C-alpha cells in the first residue's frame, strides 16, 4: 500500500487519495492563441517517464486538498511532497 504524506493530514494510505497525473501543466493563459497542435498537446499529451515523476494527488477522503509529489514510477517511492503552487525545486531540501 502506498502511503502518501498529505501536507495537511500526514501519512495516509493511497486509498484515501485521487490521482491527478502530471503536475505543473498549467492551463494555457490564452487557449485561443494556440494552434490546434499546441492545444492538442495540452489536452492529450503528458509526460510519461520511467523514473521520477512530478504528479498531483488529492486527498479525497480527507482534507480534499490537491498537492504535488515526486514519485519514482519504477519503485513507487515518493521522494517529495509539496503544496499546490510550490515548484518542484523548493522541495529538494531533505527530500
Amino acid at each position: 500500500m502506498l502511503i502518501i504524506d498529505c501536507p495537511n493530514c500526514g501519512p495516509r494510505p493511497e486509498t484515501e487519495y485521487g490521482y491527478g497525473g502530471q503536475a505543473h501543466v498549467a492551463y494555457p493563459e490564452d487557449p485561443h492563441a494556440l494552434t490546434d497542435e499546441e492545444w492538442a498537446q495540452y489536452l492529450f499529451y503528458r509526460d510519461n517517464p520511467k523514473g521520477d515523476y512530478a504528479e498531483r494527488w488529492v486527498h479525497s477522503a480527507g482534507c480534499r486538498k490537491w498537492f504535488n509529489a515526486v514519485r519514482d514510477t519504477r519503485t513507487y517511492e515518493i521522494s517529495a511532497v509539496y503544496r499546490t503552487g510550490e515548484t518542484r525545486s523548493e522541495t529538494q531540501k531533505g527530500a
Partner: protein
Amino acid sequence: MAADQTRRIDAGGAIDRSTPVELVVDGTTLTGFAGDTVASALVANGRLRVGDSIYRGRPRGILSAGVEEPNAFVLVHGDHDESMLPATTLELVPGLDVRLLDGIGVLDQKPDPAEYDKMHVHADVAVVGAGPAGLAAARAAAATGARVVLLEQDFRLGGSLLASPAEVVEGVPAAQWVEQVRAELEAAPEVRVLIRTTAFGSYDNNHLIAVEKRAEHLDGTARDGIPRQRIWHVTAAQVVLATGAFERPIVFADNDVPGVMLASSVTTYVRRYAALPGREAVVVTTNDSGYAAAHALLEAGASVQVLDARDEGASPVVASAAQAAGLRVRTGCAVVGIDGDASVEGAWVARIDAEGALVGDAERVVCDLVAVSGGWTPNVSLHSQRQGALHWDDDLAGFVPTAAVRNQHLAGAVRGTYWTDGCRAEGDAAGVAAASAAGFSAASRSTVIGADAVAEERVARAGRTRQLWVVEGREGGYATHFVDLQRDNTAADVLRATGAGMRSVEHVKRYTSISTGVDQGRIGAVNTIGLLTRVLSGDDTRAIPPGQPGQDETASGPAAGAARPTPGAIGNTTFRAPFTPVAFAALAGRSRGDLFDAARTTSIHPWHEAHGALFEDVGQWKRPWYYPRPGEDIDAAVARECRAAREGVAFMDATTLGKIEIRGADAGEFLNRLYTNAFKKLAVGKARYGVMCKPDGMVFDDGVVLRLAEDRYFATTTTGGAARVLEWLEEWSQTEWPDLDVVCTSVTEQWSTIAVVGPRSREVIARMAPDLDVTREGFGFMEFRETVLASGIPARICRITFSGELAFEINVPTWYGLQVWEDVAEAGADFDITPYGTETMHVLRAEKAYPIVGQDTDGTVTPQDLGMSWIVSTTKDFVGNRSYSRSSHRAADRKQLVSVLPLDRSLRLPEGAQLVEPGALGDYTGEGLPSRPIPMLGHVTSSYHSQALGRSFGLALVKAGRDRIGQTLIASFEGRFAEVEVADAVLYDKEGARRDG
C-alpha cells in the same frame, strides 16, 4: 483405536494421544490424534499414496510435511466443499471428510454460508515465522515494550523445532523453550500472536497481508459469530522475516514413486507426529542435513542406510555421529532409480561421478522409503515480493537474500543460517534491531551475538552441499526424472525447452509449466535452474536478459564465454503474492450483498417503498423508477404518471441530484470560467440552467444554478455526476485559480428536494406555503424564494421545470424531507397528486428535448451538437471553448440531437437502435450479418411512448441531424428495420407556453 495406526510410533510426538480423532478419506474411516495433520494421520495409518499425477496418471505419495507439498491434495467435504488443500497443512479435526485429488479441484456450486472478515492493525514490529529465529525476534522486540505481531502459518509455534523437540535451546529442550517463549509473549500486553495465520503478501511500506483460519479447527464446523477466515492487514514500522527454508528433492529416475520423501519431512513425521513413513529406509543426501533423518529413523526402529552423494562424505562432526549410531554410509553414491510403481519396493543405488553419471553397475537395495535431501532453498518469497535483492551463494547452494529490504530484517534459515542456535541468535539480534529502529530500545542485555558473526559461521555449519542437479538413470533418457511433480514435468521437458531455443528461465517455465502449480516452484524451481546450468553454455547466456530475481548483475549481463553458467547467471522466476493460496471469499470479506457497495437512499425512501415503488440504481442511489398500482405494468404506470404531470399535478423525489454551494467574492467569476454560459451577473434570487464541458469541449454535466447572495451560488448536478463535478470544481479552484476567492461545499445530503409538477402545481404550493405569493406574476420562472411552510419548516422553493410544465421544487433540510413529502401528498390529495419516478421524468423531459447527460451524451457530444448553441457564450471564455475551433467540430457530419418518429406510431424503438440511410442496407434483410459494414448515421438515445403526443418517439444523435429534418431513415434493431421520420428535437410545446401554467 490405535490398533489401526500401524505406523504410529509408541511414544513421543506433539500429538495428544488422549484425543483420538476420526478421519474419513475417500469413504474409509481412519483414526489419528489431535495434533495430527491429515497427512500425518495417513502416514501413521501406513498410507503414503495419495491422488495420481494430473497428466500422466502416475501414482503419487506424500512428499513433504508442509506448504511445499506437490502431491497430497484433498477436497474437504462440507457446507461448501473446498478443493486443493494440501493434506500436509490440514489440521486433523473431528468430522473431517476428505477426498484425495488427482492434482485438480472441483468447485462447489452450493452457496458458501461461511462468513469472512478483515482486520487492520498497526504494529511497531511484525515478525513472520515462529521457528527459533522468529520466536527469538518476537521475544526480543516484545521485551522493549514495542507492539509486536507474530504471524505463524502452522497451528503450533516452533517451526523447525517441532521436528527436533529434544534439541537443547538456551539450555532447555526445544519443546520447553518454545513454551517458555510463548508464555512470555502471551504475557506481554502489546503482543499479538497469530497462529494458523499465513502472511501471504508483502507490499509497499511494510504492509503485510495474512489470512487466518479461525473456525476450521473448532469441531470442524463454523460457529455463529466466528468468521471462518480473517484477512489481516498489518502495517508495521519494522518487519522481521524469519520464514525459514525449503528442502529440495534430487532429480533421479522415477523419483515420484510414493515412498520417496523429503528427508527433513521424514524427520518431521517421526519426531513431531510420531508417524513412521517406512521401516526400511534409504537416505540419499547431497549435504549434512540429510543425516538427521537417518538418526530419527534409526531411533524409531527402522533400518537405515545413507547414501552421501559427496565423495568426501559428511563434515567430521556429522560423520562421526553417524558412525557412533551405527549408520551404514556410502559416499559418492546416489539413488539412480526406483523399483515399484504404487510404492517404493527397492532403490537402485550406484556410484556416480562428478557429472552425476553412473559409475559401474547399480545395485538394488530393498527398501520402502527413500528420504531425499538435495539441498536447501531459503524461503524468500516475501522478501522478493518487495524486490528484495537475492544472489546465488555457491557455498550454500541456494539463492540467499543480499540485504534486507528497507525497514525489514532477515533472520534464520531464510538467510542460509541452518543451525538452531544461529537462528535463535539472529532472531534475537533482528528483534532488537527492529524494535530499536521503531523507537524502542532494549534494556541492557547480557549478550547479543552479532549477526555478522553468525554469517561467518554459516557455510562452516552447513557443510558442503554438492550441486547435484540431475542423476543419470540406468536406461538413459529423462522422461521420469521429475522436476515439478505437480505439473508432471521432467528433466526431459527442460531439455526440450532449451532444445527449442529457450534460454530464459521464464521461457522454460512457460514452455513446460514448471512452477505454475500450487507449490509455485518450491519443489522444482531451483532444480530447474540447476539443470539449466548443466544444459546451457556460457555463450547461450548472451540471449538471457538481466533482471530476474537472484540474477548476477555483472556489467555486461550474464557471464558470456564462461564454460558453464552458474545458477546466478540464470536467476529465478518472479516471486508473487500470494505465498500460498487464499480463498476468494476470504479476500472478499464482508464486501458482499448490501455491503458490496453503499445503497444511498433519501429520507423519503420509506414512503416510496410503502407505496410500491420499484427502484433503479443511479450511481449508488436507489431512485424510484415508477410506482405501479395493482395490475399495472411499467407502461401503464408511466402513462398514468405522465398524464398526471401534464394534466393535473404530480410529484417526484429529486433529492439525489448533486448540490454544491459555491461561496466567495469570486464565485461568479469562477462559475463563468467553468460553465459555458454566464453566471456572474445572474441576479440574486434567480436561477439559470448551465452546462459544463471538459477542456475538450465535450459536455460533462449540467444543472440549474441559483444565486443565493452576492457571493453565494447553489449549483445542482446530475445524480451520477455529483462527486465528479465537485472534484472538478475543487481541482480548478485549487490548482489553476488559487487566486480566486471561492470555496465549494457538497450539500447533496443536506437538502431534500421535492418537485411538484403540472398545471395544478401552483395550487398545491399555495397550500404548502401560504405566506408565499405564488401567482404567475408574483413568482416568475427561474426564480426562487425562501419561505416558511405551513408546517413551520423553512424551505427554499424554486420555479424550475424539467418537464416543461409549470413546476416548483421545494427544498428543505434533509431531516424534514419525509414530513414535507407527506405534506405535499396531503396538500395535493384533492387534485389526485401522483408520485412519479425516473421513467416518467425521462419521458417528460424528452418530449421537450432536455438532454440527460450520460444518456443523450457519451463524452463525445458538445452543447452545439445538442442544439444548445444558445448556451455557449460568445462574450466570455470558458473551459472547453477553445476546442470548438478544431477541424472535427466544423465537420458537416457531426452528430446532432434530433427526434425520430417511427412511422408506426405505436412502435417504441429500443434505446440503442442504430439509424441508417434507406439505401444503405443493400440486400441485408436483418438475418445473420451483412456481407459488408453498413454505414451508420447515429443511434436512438432515448425512446418512449408519449401520452402528450399520443404516439411513440425517440431522441437520437444523428450525423448532420438538423439538416435531415423531414427525412426518413431506417432504424435497425433486433434484426428488424423500421422507418422513422427525423424531426426537430423538441416535440411538445415548442413555444414553452405550458411552463407558466
